[in-house]
């Protein structure tokens, strides 16, 4: 599927390459460093267009909480520049290494195009919530901007949101402007050993419904054979973290056996593992799904997929994000899809061998009345259908 790769060094050349592809009706696989190639469906294209040579931070104003970088900029480079000024990327996107076995780092464009967010999603928003501006190239090779470089902007239709999470099918991002924030001085975690999954989600709901500003709420279904473990994170200035984590532990103590991870490195390490879904324990050959439901429905999803033999699970986002790993079979997939549907949520076949992900719907269908609208939006932005055909849905 990879075939020849072009990696233009400027937006202008990239636009030309897309325009060429459109003229010749030659579909392109669009990627940054290609770390998430195994996500969703395999793309049907002979050539690959990479943004990996469009690199560099183009604007960073710490006091304005704004950073712009070209789409191919590796995330660690951005994180490092932010860390120098005590700031960070708010949505805490996962690293592709543990999840996809990638050796290279993710690029900014890739993380935005997949709208991947980590544990802080529950309190501070998704990756797409912090995309303040984009530059992108349409499927005909036209360069356009949307949004801007300020924190509040409602001028015109919000195509930043439309392109975030569009997996490169509506345009090739060439530059992204993010809202960034001061990185919290401290992190501490309240860990609660609970009886079962519903009790775990109840504890997470209680924590998220407390006034203490919980910024991460995860549930490990089986912590080394000792039963489920609920994790609640507090991040802020040292004084606040000490006070609020203590209050939270005391208030949740009736819901399970509570302990406090007060060491900042230990707490951060814990959440890095949750972010990268390490406690899921996915085997190399496993398929991995993400199901998003209302938090209290998380345990019901678990029951349903366990009944179908899918035993490896991890909950984040207060119980509403269910990571599932198991055999990459059509039956397993059908069980996940059914569980998500029953609970009124959404599923993503996050990672799977080509044979499975080419054969099934990796995302829920678009709502019926939107079908024609979706076709027209795609036709407006990529009339020749050259951008990542088949990536999200077969034949689109």
């Amino acid at each position: 599927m990879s075939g020849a790769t072009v990696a233009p060094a400027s937006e202008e050349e990239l636009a030309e390459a897309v325009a060429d592809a459109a003229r010749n009706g030659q579909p392109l696989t669009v990627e940054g460093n290609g770390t998430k190639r195994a996500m969703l469906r395999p793309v049907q294209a002979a050539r690959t267009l990479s943004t990996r040579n469009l690199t560099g931070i183009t604007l960073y104003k710490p006091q304005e909480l704004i950073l712009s970088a070209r789409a191919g900029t590796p995330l660690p480079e951005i994180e490092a520049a932010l860390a120098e000024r005590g700031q960070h990327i708010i949505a805490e996107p996962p690293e592709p290494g543990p999840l996809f076995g990638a050796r290279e780092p993710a690029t900014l464009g890739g993380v935005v195009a997949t709208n991947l967010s980590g544990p802080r999603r529950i309190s501070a928003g998704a990756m797409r919530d912090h995309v303040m501006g984009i530059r992108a190239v349409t499927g005909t090779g036209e360069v356009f901007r949307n949004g801007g470089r300020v924190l509040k902007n409602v001028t015109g239709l919000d195509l930043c949101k439309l392109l975030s999470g569009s997996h490169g099918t509506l345009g090739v991002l060439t530059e992204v402007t993010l809202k960034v924030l001061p990185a919290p001085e401290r992190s501490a975690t309240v860990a609660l050993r609970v009886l079962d999954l519903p009790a775990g989600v109840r504890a997470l709901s209680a924590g998220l419904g407390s006034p203490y500003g919980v910024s991460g709420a995860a549930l490990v279904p089986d912590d080394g054979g000792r039963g489920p473990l609920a994790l609640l994170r507090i991040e802020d200035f040292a004084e606040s973290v000490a006070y609020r984590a203590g209050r939270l532990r005391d208030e949740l103590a009736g819901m399970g056996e509570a302990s406090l991870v007060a060491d900042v490195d230990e707490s951060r390490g814990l959440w890095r593992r949750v972010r990268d879904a390490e406690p899921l324990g996915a085997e190399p050959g496993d398929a991995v799904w993400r199901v998003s439901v209302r938090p209290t429905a998380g345990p019901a999803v678990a029951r349903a997929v366990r009944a179908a033999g899918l035993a490896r699970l991890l909950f984040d986002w207060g119980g509403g994000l269910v990571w599932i790993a198991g055999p990459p079979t059509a039956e397993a997939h059908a069980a996940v899809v059914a569980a998500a549907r029953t609970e009124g949520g959404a599923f993503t076949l996050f990672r799977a061998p080509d044979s499975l992900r080419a054969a099934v719907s990796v995302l829920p269908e678009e709502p019926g009345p939107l079908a024609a609208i979706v076709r027209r939006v795609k036709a407006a932005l990529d009339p020749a259908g050259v951008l990542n055909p088949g990536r999200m849905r077969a034949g689109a």
Partner: protein
Amino acid sequence: MIRLPDPKPEVLARREEIVSALRRAVPGEGGVISEPLRLKPYETDGLSAYRQPPLAVALPASTEEVAAVLRVCHSIGVRVVPRGAGTSLSGGALPLEDAVVVGLMRMNRVLEVDFDDRLAVVEAGVTNLAITREVEGEGFFYAPDPSSQLACMIGGNVNMNSGGAHCLKYGVTANNLLGLKAVTVEGEVFEVGGKHLDAAGYDWLGLLTGSEGQLAVITEVTVRILRGPEGARAMLAAFKSNEIAGQAVDAIIGSGIIPVALEFMDRPAIHACEAFANAGYPLDAEAMLIIEVEGSVAEQDMLLGRIKEICERFDPISLKVAETAEQSLAIWKGRKGAFGAVGRISPDYLCMDGTIPTGELPHVLRRIGEMSAEYGLQVANIFHAGDGNLHPLIMFDANDPTSFGKAEAFGADILKLCVEVGGCLTGEHGVGVEKRDLMGVQFTAGELGIQRAVKSAFDPGWLLNPAKVFPLEGNAALGPAPASVPHPAAA
């Protein structure tokens, strides 16, 4: 004056027939309004200089009735102007002569509240404040808090992607939504998102938010509700110049503190608010900040202490840290009454809404001051300092036929300046009719073309809230010939 498209004669000619079809779509008392006198309340919105009674008003009470109304309009080719409370400051809800206003105010039920999943499902006509009222008993609130929150409705908030004084910490409407139920221009009902975060696939929820009634009519909204903090307290800091106050803002954010609110007022705004509210604002200051923090009392003390220390480095004229909730309220009192206060000095004013990179504040305020002298119109500036959203209030005299035109030109110049320094035309009030013709200042023709194409994908016949957001030029769907609404003062 802003041009509106010519009414379609074939629609005007079929008025009776359209009204009866609407009555069948929304049966019962109060479902359809067509008597000229009763249309009056709908002829304008928060941009009251523009007035135009619609063909008729439909007030559906359910999603099904909204769908039925849209099917009627679509089948006859009638334009539709969705409307919430009509508080839009950009003329977003301004009717057209040949349009049916679809008012959502009768859809005002809270359908579900769930504290464990921290969400509420409400109909589009529920007011912003009513959501918080519904959940505050349990200590929860709905975060975006536009100053108009007593009146404005969630459907309007979604379509304007409204913000509020506390969006520096809690985000704007877009960041606080989970799902929508909506009706297409053809009258088909669909849902996006749900009760979960980040529905997979294209982000229709994000695209519909802030779409100013261009893409669909929203009938139900699922919002996130949040548990409130233990407490909140404000402080006031006054400085000798706009520059210095701007530097203080930079230093606060640079120290890693993100207050929940960080409001800036310039000298005219301070004076107007003080005269109105007697809030104890320092009249010798050139600029003033209201800074609010949250948490336990000890946390408030810690944060306010740090912020006070920072402000002290900038030679403040006065620093006042509230000791109690009452003192906090007193500090906010002037700011919250700002519109009323300016209204007392000048009954007619335009509220502008650009955003600038915060570092450009001193330059922009200096230029606005110069323009104010050039135009001979007073202006007071209120600014969400943390996020760069600037609200110049331009005062004019509606009895003077030239005054309104000058105010509009002054406003346009301010917005052009915002774009020139790297900002944008509107931070939270929307483009509406007001800024429609300035879109070319911020976007290239190609960029606007792409946005128009997305609009066309939802609304191929341009029946939904036409003549807003996108310039009329080069838009075949809106007819070629010019027509304009005369301003009452100019007429």
